[in-house]
């Protein structure tokens, strides 16, 4: 199969381009990550940053450093190098697959004080709040992309019964750590920000912390589960919140 035919490349302004995967599904994270990894490995001169979002990969570049040859234009030269790097895409070499990663567990307190919209979500789904919590904790999620604010993960894998349209009027400030549902996706507010998703609980984990490396707890492709904790556990955890990944990184 010709990999080049499966992807479209188009400019994103004069200093970035978008590689669009011919993907029907928002959940096809592995393919997007494979493209990003191949491009990183190719180390194309002039490329400054590679980033993913759902079904696309963006390649940011410094036009003054892109190697231009012959009579081709700058963008054509860059596109040729990107396509060449992606020629291996069809060989099926695994880059990172979901199955060999550990699942990151996010403890969530679903008590009233934190679950600002739990009753709304329950009413919309015609379920009891306890059933919503059980369903939310039963699923395994994957981080489709990180964005909106620093560290905010968009999670695929939300049980379909829990899908809830966004709030008619967004909140001016959603507290950091709020675990939320927006349409068919789940997410976690990593920093306090305005937001229109339904908040059903709060985690004591810090999703984004600039004093930590990496600053964002989650990245695209990560597998995530939620675990219900009591208010007492929440407060104890919040009091000494050194997140697991920071420890894991420190131990490496």
């Amino acid at each position, binding site marked *: 199969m010709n990999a080049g035919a499966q992807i479209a490349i188009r400019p994103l302004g*004069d200093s970035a381009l978008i590689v669009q995967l011919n993907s029907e599904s928002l959940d096809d994270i592995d393919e997007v990550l494979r493209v990003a990894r191949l491009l990183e490995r190719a180390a194309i001169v002039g490329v400054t940053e590679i980033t993913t979002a759902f079904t696309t990969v963006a390649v940011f570049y410094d036009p003054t450093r892109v190697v231009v040859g012959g009579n081709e234009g700058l963008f054509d030269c860059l596109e040729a190098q990107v396509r060449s790097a992606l020629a291996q895409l069809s060989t099926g070499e695994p880059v990172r697959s979901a199955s060999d990663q550990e699942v990151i567990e996010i403890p969530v307190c679903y008590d009233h004080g934190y679950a600002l919209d739990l009753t709304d979500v329950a009413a919309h789904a015609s379920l009891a709040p306890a059933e919503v919590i059980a369903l939310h904790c039963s699923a395994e999620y994957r981080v489709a992309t990180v964005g909106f604010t620093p560290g905010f993960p968009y999670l695929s894998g939300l049980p379909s019964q829990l899908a809830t349209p966004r709030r008619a009027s967004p909140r001016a400030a959603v507290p950091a750590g709020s675990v939320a549902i927006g349409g068919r996706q789940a997410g976690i507010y990593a920093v306090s920000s305005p937001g229109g998703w339904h908040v059903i609980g709060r985690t004591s984990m810090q999703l984004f912390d600039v004093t930590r490396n990496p600053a*964002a707890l989650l*990245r695209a492709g990560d597998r995530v589960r939620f675990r219900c904790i009591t208010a007492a556990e929440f407060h104890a955890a919040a009091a000494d919140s050194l997140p697991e990944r920071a420890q894991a990184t420190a131990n490496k």
Partner: protein
Amino acid sequence: MSIHVLSPGFLTTVQDNGRGGYRNAGVASGGALDSYALKIANWLVGNDASAAGVEVTLGGVRLRFADARVITWCGGKFDVRVGGTPMSPGRPVLTRAGDELTIQRPEIGCRAWLAISGGVDVPSVLGSRSTDLRAKFGGVEGRALQPNDVLQLGPNPQRSRELIVALEPAREASWFAPPEWAAPATRAPVLRVMRGGEWLRFDPASREALLRETFTVTPHADRMGVRLEGPALHHRGDELPSEPVAAGTIQVPPSGEPILLLPDCQTIGGYPKLAHVITVDLPLAAQLRPGDRVRFELVRLAEAHRLLLRRERQLAMFRLALKMRSK
């Protein structure tokens, strides 16, 4: 030594040339909204291009210097004075201990960048000293300057020390940056754009309207973006999954009012992208303030690249000229 903030003005932040490499964590590139202006100002005072400076929004600023520094500023049409003496944009000036700098509300434009020899010495966070106001980190505690803040400065670099000697006793340099870089704001800006990824999803009348009509900057204007008011722009098709966006992207939400994104913008966005302001015209975008009227002119990608490479060559020449002057 340091700078004492007597009056922080409307919105004044510490910024450098931006925070690259963290988009996958959802972190904006940020930095000075006119990266050319800060870079040129830094070179003029003897700093590296990466030194942190002060970004001033709409003026109202009063600062006091604790020691001798070479300073300059670039940006909109502001009244900037040191010890009561006006400072032209892009012309280095020597300040002494106790000197006060004032920046009044601008006649034209919105922002100015002040470079100080030695640079503002705040901690580097994720590889940059820039203030990220939304996520509240970088700069001074992740926030805008407040009265009585004290900005620590780095030591004067070798080149700046030479400039300090050279600028006695006149205090004002005889050389300066080209006005089109040091003072780019105009009353009726025309921003050059190239087609966005969803250009063809917009109906022909809307595409024509973007290039023919005048748009007004609304009060919804900050470091993340500028919402514009004008003829409603319509597109067909479904909602898109969010895609990466960048400074310069013009996206159009369902209201039909375009939003021009600036360097603190979100890393991804789901609204159709009608066009992109080209890099060499981002300095004009950084000067838009509520009430300003702006027009757009279409260029091709190859032209955007040609202009960018030409700008880069001009900057290299300018840098070389500054270096030779110090010999």
